[in-house]
Each structure stands twice: as C-alpha cells, then as structure tokens.
C-alpha cells in the first residue's frame, strides 16, 4: 500500500484541487486504506459544515441601502465630466457655439437617461430570472429529497416558533387557509446568500414551497414566472419578500399567495 495521504492532500482532495495524477494516486490509496477514506470523508463533511456555519452574518438592510447609494452616486458626476463638458470647453466660438453645446448637452442627457432606464430594466429582469430560477431549483430539490422537512407539523403555532433564533426576522402564518390547503412543515434555507424560511404546504396533491425573506430592495416589484410547468409568484409585504412556487393551477396558487400576504399585515 502507498503512503498515507498527508493533511495537505486530504484537504486538497476535499476542495477538488488535486491534479489528475495526484487524484489517481489518492484514489488508488483510498481503495486500500479505510483510515484515509474515513479522513477524506471527514474532511468533506467538515468542509460542508464550515460552508453552512460560515454563512452567519446577514448584511443589514440599511447598510445595503447606504452602499447602493454610494455606488450609484458617482454616475452623474462621471457623466458630467465626460464628453459633454469637454465639448463645452472646446466650443469657444460665440453664441452659436454655446447654443450647439446646450443642444448637445440635452441630447446626451436624454440619451443617457433613456439608456439608464433601459439598463435598469434589463438588470431588474436578470435579477428576477435569477431569483425565479433559484426558487424553482430549491423547490425541485425539496421534492426530490427523501428526507422529511426539518420541522414536520400542520400546526402554525409549532412551525413559526421553530424559526426563533434561526432567522433575523419574523413572519405570520395564515390561520384560515383556502380549501384543500394544508401546512406540511418547514425548512431553514438560503436564497441569495440570505437565510430564509421555506414553508411547505400542499394544495390538494400539489406541493407548494413558500420562501420568506427580509426585503432588501424597497421598490422591488411583484412578478410571476413560469418554468417547466411550475409557477413562481414573488410578492412583497411591508418588510418581507415572499416567493411561492408550485405546479398547482395558477389561480389557486394566486389565491393562496393573497391569503399568505394578508397574514403578514395581521398582528
């Protein structure tokens, strides 16, 4: 049997950083060495444990707003110090020149605003797509998993308290659900690197995932999306963003979202 794997090699194996040759040699050794195999498994578990435990601190919404303003603020200044102002400095040939500069300024200003709005819309669309995809993926992964939810209960007074200390925000679960709708349980999950509540409901035989997270953008519009027969509805309440995904009839899903959203305004 070849020499035991060193700590560096075991670490690099868990990180997928071994060269093809190193990997082949490591696999040869692991096939014959239960001790190193146990260590390799432990390294992988440690890595995934650290990945979960390391996502500990959530960006405060007010800091995010401040930073967003900070990154957005220099844009107009850059535009002002760009081509338009340089043009005005060089156009020193009387009133006609200044008039031309003014027209140019208006033209460039208008173009910049239109371009900026178009750009914002594109960025918003990409973000919506990304959120819908992430929500869809997590729902499908939940359906595919053979494990039960982390908290299994049909009682909202059991499910909601389970999140105490796990999430930096709170939310309400509706008391009266639409006909045929039941609460199945919940998971602690992550969306966009933020901890979220994944509430699991059934509408008839259709499974529904409701992701509840702290709202980060004050003006985020509601939107619907569809992917592979699943419907995603994203809606906001005062402090929360709710993303709901299921393959149930869109009208029933929409009625459920309305109920869930209304519950957030109750005390």
């Amino acid at each position, binding site marked *: 049997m070849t020499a*035991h794997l*060193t*700590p*560096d090699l*075991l*670490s*690099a194996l868990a*990180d997928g*950083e071994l060269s093809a040759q190193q990997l082949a040699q490591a696999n040869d050794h692991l096939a014959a060495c239960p*001790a*190193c195999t*146990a*260590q390799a*498994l*432990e*390294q992988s*578990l*440690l*890595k*995934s*444990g*650290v*990945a*979960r*435990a*390391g*996502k*500990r*601190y*959530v*960006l*405060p919404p007010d*800091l*995010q707003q*401040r*930073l*967003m303003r*900070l*990154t*957005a603020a*220099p*844009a107009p200044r*850059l*535009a002002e110090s760009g*081509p338009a102002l*340089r*043009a005005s400095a*060089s*156009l020193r040939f009387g009133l006609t020149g200044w008039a*031309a500069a003014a027209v*140019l300024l208006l033209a*460039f200003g208008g*173009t910049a605003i239109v*371009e*900026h709005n178009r*750009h914002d819309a594109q*960025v918003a669309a990409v973000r919506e797509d990304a959120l819908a995809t992430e929500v869809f993926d997590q729902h499908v992964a939940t359906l595919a998993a053979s494990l039960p939810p982390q908290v299994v209960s049909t009682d909202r007074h059991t499910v909601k308290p389970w999140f105490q200390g796990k999430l930096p925000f709170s939310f309400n679960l509706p008391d009266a659900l639409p006909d045929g709708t039941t609460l199945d349980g919940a998971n602690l999950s992550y969306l*966009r*690197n*933020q901890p979220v509540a994944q509430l699991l409901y059934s509408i008839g035989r259709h499974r529904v995932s409701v992701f509840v997270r702290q709202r980060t953008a004050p003006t985020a519009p509601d939107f619907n999306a569809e992917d592979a027969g699943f419907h995603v509805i994203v809606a906001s309440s005062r402090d929360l963003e709710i993303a709901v995904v299921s393959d149930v009839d869109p009208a029933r899903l929409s009625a459920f979202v309305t109920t869930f959203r209304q519950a957030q305004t109750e005390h």
Partner: protein
Amino acid sequence: MTLLLWRRAERDPVPRTSVFEELALPLLPALYNVAFWLSRNPADAEDLVQETIVKSLRGFQSFEPGTNFKAWIFRILRNTYLTSRSGLAALRTVALDDELAEAELHPEGAIDRGTPELNFIRLNDRAALESAMEALPPPLLEVILLCDVEEMKYREIAAVLDIPIGTVMSRIARARAALRQALESRV
C-alpha cells in the same frame, strides 16, 4: 468634433460605475459576512465594507475587465482589514508561521488515524463549528472562509491573500486540523 464625441459615446454606452454596481452589489452580503467574521463586531464590519466599496470604486479604473472581480474586491477588503484597528491588533497577536518546517506545521496527531472516526455528528453541529471558527487565528480563519464559504479556488485565494498556492494549501489543512481539534475538545 461632434462626430468624434458621438463615436466615443457609442463605444462606451454604459458608465463604468454602472458596471461596478452590477459586479459589486451581488457581493455585498458575502463581503459583509467575511468582514464580520474578521473584525468580530458589527460596527467594524460596516466600516470595513463601506471603506472597501469606496476604495474599490475609486480604483475601479485599474480593474481589468474580464479578470476575476470577486478576487479583486476581496483583496481590497482584506488589505483594508489589515490596516484597520482590529486587523492591526490581530497582526500583533498572531505570528504567521508559514516559514516553519513541514514537520512543525503538521505535528504528530494532527491526523489521528488511530481513532476510527471523529464523531461525524459533531461536524453537523453548527454551534460547535461556529465556536471553533471563532477560535481560529485570523490567517487561518480568512483562508477557510474564502475556501469553504466563498468557494474560491486556491489560485483565487492566493491572489486575494498575495501568498503562494502552496501556502494556501497548507494553511487550509492547518485550519481544518485546528477546527477538528476544537470539535474533539468539546466532548
């Protein structure tokens, strides 16, 4: 003149700051998380992230499009941390011992093959892991955060920390050995 200006505007329709926003904003949660781990309090973490954003915005002209923005901005965060109050305090109390011989880096028992297994259940104990991570010295904590939480490759971590890839590899191994020992000592 007008024609030249028009052509210039056409070539660069999206301001650099807009590009910066698109690249930087999705990384804010990750920057804050790492900043909090390193500085160990919310006020310093906020200052650290804010200063990082200001510095990176100011230096964005030097960022080469197409290269790794995440490694670039994390390097700024890390350098800002090193010159911060908490970073300087950490540097004073922790010796970087990468120069030590290999035998000293991995003392006997760092990998305990005599024990059948570390209790795997403890590896899923989030609170225990968080405590063990809190006890790590900053050079080991930062490398394990970049590797496991930020899922950076060794060469990206080497660029962020400005150290050779071999040193990245040994620091990660040492960080995991320290975490493992901390978890075992909780029994």
